[in-house]
């Protein structure tokens, strides 16, 4: 038993080492600066946590005793720590010896190694490194292994005791967003030097973590008054974010929340109704272009000519941003119905292919209808929103608007989820025939899913156009659909808070990691694969999904479906006593 725990530790340590090597080689330390080593250690702890908890089954969590677990964790940490320390020291030696490794390993620059040692790059070149620093790195990563064990143990404790009995961890979860918010605000103080050049990045990261942890805090709170009070406090705290973040940070958050709006809409189509729509970008594009036509008619040759011939001046916005909202949404919704009608009878992969085609058709239409859309040159000078004569076009205002938009859509989605229509969607997703036989009008239910999803994408598209002010067909490629679908899946299909987390993870984090841009796609692809294995239901799944994928709620398993393997007390069946 002890030997097996040890071997498991070796294996997990080696895996962690491989991941760390990859992260170092793609230049993550440079990006993180002073906090490189702590962040790597934190990441390692998370890797250990995932590896130690042992797959997805509840049993794996429940049946491993603390002592062998600790042995495994400590071994893994020690292995990863020593190997990584050796690797870093090795690179440092090479660099100090004047070996030019760049042709082979393009990110092993002195800066990268310096970040790991917490010294200036010059020190690496001269070989003037703290002597015992490798030990510090090894210890830090060993500690990460132990933290991983603690995470597994506390997760287990939480599951067994359930949230309602309270506990320190529950309160920590509830307090975490406030701690992070305070940290964000504190980092905004110009006198603070933490993070050096990367202070802004650190701040953005903390802001995103604050939003993400707020969602977990809400889940940890007891339903009822505690949850309501917490929600109010969190809302107040988060509402302060746009006012404390700088332009760049706000602009990243703006795009993240535009994608939250998109994700919430697609979540209705895919998560609630189970219709795999890969052409979702079409409605985003429709929203953006319709708003562009309305606010900058002069940019479109055909449209401005038409207006002029009707005697309507085309040299300024036709209507305000606010008045345009119903028009863009309804147009996009109509697009949703138009897409829905031909695909009513399609399911699964066929549906995916046809909708994918629809998305591309809209883009090609925008690209080739030059008279109307100005083709690849795009529509320029789209108007920002105005309120009482003030422009709301700067990143902070766009972030606020996106927050509001996402809030409204989230509320609508939440109401829909519990509604009659929501139940019809679920039934349809499960079994179309039976749903119909229980009285669900399939045509209407499907079209409503497409239309409502499209409405929300249209609103997101309008806000996007107002944010960009110039829009081009290239803004609306298939990748927008794919990104949106990914964030829905990563967050947890069908889960509303999951969408927010998914958007933060897939749209926000890459912005933070701009420095490792070229490796972004690979890194995220790998993350996605790992996630789908460890947590197929998403980061923050809806309770129903979790039930679907983890067999929670009953001892019987799938295979029981056909066997009448019934317990002996079965005779109570006909209502009589045994």
């Amino acid at each position, binding site marked *: 038993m002890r030997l097996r725990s040890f071997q498991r530790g070796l294996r997990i340590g080696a895996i962690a080492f491989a991941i760390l090597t990859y992260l170092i080689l793609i230049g993550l330390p440079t990006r993180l600066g002073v906090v490189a080593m702590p962040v790597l250690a934190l990441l390692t702890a998370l890797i250990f946590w995932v590896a130690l908890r042992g797959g997805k089954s509840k049993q794996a969590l429940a049946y491993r005793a603390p002592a062998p677990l600790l042995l495994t964790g400590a071994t893994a940490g020690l292995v990863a720590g020593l190997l990584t320390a050796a690797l870093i020291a090795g690179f440092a030696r090479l660099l100090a010896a004047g070996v030019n490794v760049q042709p082979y390993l393009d990110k092993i620059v002195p800066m990268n190694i310096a970040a790991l040692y917490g010294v200036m790059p010059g020190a690496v070149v001269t070989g003037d490194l703290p002597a015992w620093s490798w030990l510090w790195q090894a210890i830090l990563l060993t500690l990460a292994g132990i933290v991983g064990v603690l995470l597994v143990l506390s997760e287990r404790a939480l599951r067994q005791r359930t949230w309602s009995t309270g506990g320190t961890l529950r309160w920590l979860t509830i307090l975490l967003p406030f701690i992070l918010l305070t940290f964000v605000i504190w980092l905004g103080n110009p006198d603070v030097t933490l993070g050096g050049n990367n202070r802004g990045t650190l701040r953005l990261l903390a802001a995103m973590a604050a939003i993400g942890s707020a969602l977990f805090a809400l889940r940890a709170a007891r339903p009822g008054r505690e949850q309501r009070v917490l929600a109010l406090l969190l809302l107040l705290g988060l509402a302060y974010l746009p006012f404390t973040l700088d332009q760049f940070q706000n602009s990243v958050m703006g795009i993240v929340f535009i994608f939250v709006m998109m994700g919430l809409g697609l979540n209705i189509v895919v998560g609630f109704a189970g219709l795999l729509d890969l052409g979702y970008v079409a409605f985003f594009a429709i929203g953006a272009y319709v708003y562009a036509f309305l606010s900058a008619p002069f940019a479109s040759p055909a449209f401005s000519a038409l207006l002029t011939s009707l005697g309507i001046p085309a040299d300024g916005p036709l209507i305000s941003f606010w008045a345009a909202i119903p028009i863009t949404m309804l147009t996009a919704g109509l697009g949703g119905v138009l897409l829905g009608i031909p695909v009513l009878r399609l399911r699964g992969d066929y549906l995916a292919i046809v909708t994918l085609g629809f998305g591309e058709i809209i883009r090609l239409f925008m690209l080739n209808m030059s008279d109307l859309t100005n083709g690849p040159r795009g529509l320029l000078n789209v108007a920002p929103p105005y309120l009482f004569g003030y422009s709301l076009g700067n990143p902070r205002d766009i972030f606020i608007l996106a927050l509001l938009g996402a809030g409204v859509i989230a509320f609508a989605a939440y109401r829909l989820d519990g509604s009659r229509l929501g139940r019809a969607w679920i039934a349809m997703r499960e079994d179309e025939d039976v749903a119909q036989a229980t009285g669900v009008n399939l045509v209407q239910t499907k079209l409503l899913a497409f239309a409502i999803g499209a409405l929300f994408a249209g609103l997101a598209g309008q806000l996007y156009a107002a944010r960009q002010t110039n829009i081009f067909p290239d803004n609306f490629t298939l990748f927008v659909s794919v990104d949106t679908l990914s964030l829905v899946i990563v967050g947890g299909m069908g889960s509303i808070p999951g969408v927010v987390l998914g958007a933060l993870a897939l749209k926000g984090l890459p912005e933070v990691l701009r420095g490792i841009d070229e490796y972004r796609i690979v890194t995220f692809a790998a993350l996605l694969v790992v996630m789908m294995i460890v947590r197929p239901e998403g980061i923050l799944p809806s309770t129903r999904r979790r039930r679907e994928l983890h067999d929670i709620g009953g001892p019987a398993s799938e295979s029981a479906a056909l066997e009448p393997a019934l317990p002996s007390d079965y005779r*109570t069946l*006909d209502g009589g006593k045994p």
Partner: protein
Amino acid sequence: MLVLDQIHTYYDRIHALKGVSLTVERGEIVTLIGSNGAGKTTTLRTISGLLKPRAGNILLEGAPIDELPAHEITRLGISQSPEGRRIFARLTVEENLEMGAFARSDKAGIRQDMARVLELFPRLRERLHQRGGTLSGGEQQMLAMGRALMSRPRLLLLDEPSMGLAPLLVEQIFQIIRNINEQGVTILLVEQNAHVALSIAHRAYVMETGAIVLAGPAADVLASPQVREAYLGG
């Protein structure tokens, strides 16, 4: 109550029902038996509107229903427990039952029927919050029947309720079917298990390759040499 008059149903070019006529009177249990592939399931799916007949009429209380979409037929009081149960595997037992009452809006009535169904199937009460897919085969069958009852049907279509169940359980399920019938629900029962089906039914139809080949009171059909040979092993 229900009349099928010369019904022809196709799967594309496959002629599955070749002029099926049958009637079900109010309060009856009528059983439809026949070998595999005879068209029994097709008949039920045609009645409930999931398949559209290419020719012939279906009348419910004298009014034609063959043109109506399935969800409207449900609202007229026909409900079915489909072949292979097909419960919503990822919904809980309770949600499955609620889904059965989807077409209704009378909350009090639904609650009442929920209680009635749980009384009929006490096993389900213990498992209200378990998801459907984790139920045993027998429990799933009860759930499928319970779900069908939740729409408070006038006519209940049952497609092989005994499929895959142990003999003891088969007997109990049929007892429940009789109970349901006594509570005033008319039943059209499709079964492979001809012997038991004929023993609880009032009347019976025998189907072969898409057509009715024999009809009559259940006792007569049970006694007919043709049926004894083909379905009851001599």
